[in-house]
């Protein structure tokens, strides 16, 4: 039998020198996801291909829910649509008991289509049209007001609507001791703006302040920031109760929990530095519990966690298109998974595993996507086993944002499949065709022909 072939490599040995990009991480190929062979998936659905594990979604959700429920009596998750608004994904979360948290009229419509009752939709975001607001009022949705212009628009709308009240909350931003401070969404707590907004709402007969909302940041590496935020939210709730004699029904702490992806520029791997669900839960719930609410008056705690609930459940399968040498002698590997469908590679060093057997040899390589654009660079340098054209790879933790923030740029977007809890594979979004794109285009009559 002939020996197994591997492309020849020569690696310079640098004794004692640290590689600032870290050492090799991949020691075993990833040949299957939830016991479904990667090769079979790609043979049937093509490459690239997004794969979502329903089992992982449900397990992660249960883990997060347990972390909060074992510490606090009234907890409600609301699925952050913008993180991944594929209907199949949303339905898994709704089956688990999540409400919907949307940030646009488009996402609102999606939530309604998914059968979410209007009163279980939280409407966040700075962009709500008059039509959106009317629809939300009629459906008894929770409108989280972002700025004074929106508040005044809602007041105007309510003047025309009879026999109904709008259920509202205000979005609060604040200094939680982390940098950068997010202050572009909502009303500022520290300078009194949030209280001014509450006072304005109190004066409106047709607005009912039901809750308070904050979203202190994203990929929060310290759980303590949530403790600071929770305390300030409790202070506001107390001021409201003292002023009106009424209580807010809920405190919505937003999202921002980390997934275990590694941020670019991070010295340590993400999994080694991120807080756990328990860390976040402890920070938030202990602050609220110790604030001094009477047990029967504890507000409902709402969480809009997105990234941390879905990232791990998403995989991207791809193929090596070519390998080449850069001017400095480094290997470059061109993959069919570019930044167009892997938007998060702009800020994460995604873990990438070969999907077939390999030898013990590894080589430093740059990873590029397929786009004819200089920005399409996935990794500046990573030490991977030797790969050749046609080899397959698995990109880990791409469940959050990639399937919503992806770009239709240069090429079309691929199939997405979901592996259910029994191991059956379902196509949940069809790959785009040329018609998907051109059907939206209109060519003026005088440009319809040419004489080339």
């Amino acid at each position, binding site marked *: 039998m002939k020996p197994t*072939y591997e492309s020849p490599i*020569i690696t310079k040995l640098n*004794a004692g020198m640290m590689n600032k990009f870290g050492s090799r991480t991949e020691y075993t190929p990833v040949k299957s996801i939830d016991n479904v062979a990667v090769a079979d998936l790609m043979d049937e659905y093509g490459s690239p291909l997004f794969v979502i594990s329903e089992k992982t979604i449900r397990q992660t959700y249960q883990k997060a829910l347990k972390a909060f429920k074992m510490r606090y009596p009234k907890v409600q998750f609301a699925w952050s649509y913008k993180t991944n608004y594929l209907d199949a994904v949303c339905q898994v979360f709704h089956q688990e008991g999540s409400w919907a948290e949307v940030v646009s009229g488009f996402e609102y419509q999606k939530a309604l289509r998914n059968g979410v009752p209007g009163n279980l939709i939280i409407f966040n975001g700075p962009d709500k049209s008059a039509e959106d607001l009317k629809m939300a009022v009629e459906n008894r949705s929770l409108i989280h007001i972002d700025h004074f212009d929106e508040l005044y628009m809602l007041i105007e709308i309510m003047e025309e609507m009879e026999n109904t009240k709008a259920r509202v909350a205000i979005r609060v931003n604040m200094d939680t001791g982390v940098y950068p401070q997010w202050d572009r969404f909502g009303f500022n707590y520290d300078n009194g703006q949030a209280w001014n907004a509450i006072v304005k709402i109190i004066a409106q007969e047709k607005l009912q302040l039901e809750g308070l909302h904050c979203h202190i940041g994203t990929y929060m590496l310290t759980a303590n920031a949530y403790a600071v935020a929770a305390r300030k939210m409790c202070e506001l709730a107390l001021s409201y109760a003292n002023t009106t004699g009424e209580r807010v029904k809920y405190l919505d702490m937003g999202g921002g929990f980390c997934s275990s992806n590694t941020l670019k520029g991070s010295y340590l791997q993400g999994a080694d530095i991120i807080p756990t669900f328990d860390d976040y839960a402890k920070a938030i719930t202990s602050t609220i519990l110790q604030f001094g609410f009477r047990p029967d008056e504890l507000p409902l705690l709402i969480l809009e966690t997105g990234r941390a609930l879905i990232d791990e459940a998403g995989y991207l399968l791809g193929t090596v298109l070519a390998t080449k040498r850069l001017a400095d002698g480094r290997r470059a590997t061109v993959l069919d998974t570019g930044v167009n469908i892997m938007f998060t590679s702009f800020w994460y060093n995604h873990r990438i595993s070969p999907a077939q057997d390999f030898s013990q040899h590894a080589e430093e390589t740059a990873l590029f996507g397929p786009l004819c654009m200089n920005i399409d660079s996935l990794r500046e340098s990573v030490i991977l086993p030797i790969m050749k054209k046609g080899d397959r790879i698995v990109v880990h933790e791409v469940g959050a944002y990639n399937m919503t923030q992806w770009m239709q740029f240069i090429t079309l977007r691929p199939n997405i499949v979901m592996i259910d809890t029994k191991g059956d594979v379902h196509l949940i979004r069809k790959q785009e065709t040329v018609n998907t794109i051109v059907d939206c285009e209109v060519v003026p009559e005088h440009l319809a022909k040419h004489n080339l």
Partner: protein
Amino acid sequence: MKIRKNIAISENGFIFNPMTGDSFSVNETGAFILQKLKDDESEETILQNLMDEYDLDTYTAERDLNDFLSMLKGHQLTTNE
């Protein structure tokens, strides 16, 4: 293309260049090619040897051999004598 005469090559793929003090490692295929170069085989012969040894098609063998030779050159392990 030939390997510099003073380059030390061990059987398990360890390379030492006494001129620069650099050391390198190669994988099995790399060691196979280096041994042929050390034996003064021509590039054409090495190409044929590669295809016979690993049952390769011409394109893969030629592409990988050229790539490997360019790396040897880049590491100053070769001479044009």
